[in-house]
């Protein structure tokens, strides 16, 4: 069964229709890369998957469970907040601008979810957090605050923070777009190891074509709120079927 299933998702902000019937399936352990022009709805799609934004219509389920909604009288009704929060906890998210908690150390950031959401005893949570920081190569920075870390280090802490909740699915919203070019590699390396060693199910919005070729099982090109084409990265990037895809790829390669 699909780990993530998005069926005919629609979302509009006022008069702007951002998602116009997107559908997407991601199997367990798969890595799917979403590419597309700015404003095409990629980020909105990720935010709808963990219900940071409610859908207007369509349905999204993770591991067979609807996110943010429940069946009611043949339709869907929005879940209550604790239920939404519970489902979100199983979906990790990494943001373009890291969004680390500035008042907590790297260790505190990683332990935040387990301690405050799951009620894990602090000592145990911090032990696990140390192991995760080690995983992303930052065990030496455990006591540092985000302001004392480089962008690449902050993003690696953010990945560890999301992993601490032992998510079934990880969403990456342009995780390297806010980084200086020389720091992009270290973040992509961590993401690659998640895919290869942990077999994490991942949906990654990115412009890093090299990463996509390397790790992705599938590439999805989104334009104007719809999936224009999808397939193996080699096919989408080397032999795109649509003019729009060719145009876009030409622009990001230039």
């Amino acid at each position, binding site marked *: 069964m699909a780990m993530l299933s998005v069926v005919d998702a629609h979302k509009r902000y006022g008069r702007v229709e951002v998602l116009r019937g997107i559908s997407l399936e991601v199997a367990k352990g798969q890595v799917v890369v979403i590419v597309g022009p700015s404003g095409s709805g990629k980020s909105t799609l990720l935010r709808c998957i963990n219900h*940071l934004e409610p859908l207007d219509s369509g349905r999204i389920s993770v591991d067979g469970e609807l996110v943010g909604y429940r069946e009611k009288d043949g339709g869907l009704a929005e879940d209550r907040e*604790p239920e939404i*929060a519970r489902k979100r906890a*199983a979906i990790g998210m990494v*943001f373009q601008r890291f969004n*680390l908690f500035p*008042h*907590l150390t790297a260790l505190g950031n990683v332990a935040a979810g387990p301690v*405050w959401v799951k009620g894990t005893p602090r000592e145990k949570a911090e032990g696990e957090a140390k192991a995760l920081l080690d995983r992303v190569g930052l065990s030496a920075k455990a006591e540092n605050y985000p302001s004392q870390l480089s962008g690449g280090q902050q993003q690696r802490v953010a990945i560890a*923070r999301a992993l601490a909740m032992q998510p079934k699915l990880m969403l990456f919203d342009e995780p390297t777009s806010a980084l200086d070019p020389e720091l992009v590699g270290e973040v992509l390396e961590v993401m690659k190891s998640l895919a290869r060693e942990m077999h994490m199910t991942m949906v990654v919005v990115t412009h890093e074509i090299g990463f996509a070729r390397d790790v992705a099982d599938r590439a999805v090109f989104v334009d104007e709120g719809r999936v224009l084409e999808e397939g193996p990265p080699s096919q989408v990037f080397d032999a795109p079927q649509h003019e729009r895809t060719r145009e876009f790829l030409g622009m990001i390669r230039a």
Partner: protein
Amino acid sequence: MLAILLAIDFKPDIVWKFLFDDVIIEGAWVTLQVSVVAMLIGVVFGGGFALMKVSRNPVFRGAAGFYVWFFRGTPALLQLLILYFGLPQVIDNQQFTNELTAFRAAIIAFGINEGAYMTEIVRAGILSVDTGQMDAAKSLGMTQMRAMRRVVLPQAMRVVVPPTGNEFISMLKNSSLAFTIGLVELLGAAKLIYAVNFRFMELLVVAAIWYLAFTTIFSVLQGEVERLLAVGDRERPRTFISRTIELLSGKRGTEMV
């Protein structure tokens, strides 16, 4: 010119004599108590109503909006008079009237009034925190309330403290309004004494010295609180006390947190 200077009638020894006079000390103590307790009420009300104002529930938002509108929109003195003279007339209950001393009325009225200002200050603090913080907290599975308490409010505090210090200093001074309902606070005590001895200037100087002493002490404390809250900054601001400690312990230079 010289004649005017020679004719100056100001006796510093009278200032000195009354600076620690029992009535003045008593008044200063009343001012301090009213200000501190009313400020605490203001902070609690401000926190609560600010949360209501940013909530998605329209009833909460409306109630908080009305509170701010009314208590910020009328003079504090008017609210004090309503509470102390108006309500006992309307309620007409002997026990209520007896229990409502001038001291209590001042604390309650100033506290509720302050709450309206604190509501806006706390709300501004909450709005100053990047929305990405709420997104990140929610994506970890925190509910709105938990994210507010653990992630947003601790960061909002940094923005809230400086104007709160301002509010407290205003409170110290404006509490002198309570003399209108017969509460002998610091300025009131000075007035009572100069009404008898006619040494207006000396007694006013005495009151000024006490107000300045209070505001100075609280400004220093505020600096310390701001320093504590600067956790996570590359460089914590240094304060009078932290610098003194550095100087005494021989440690210099910037401290990395």
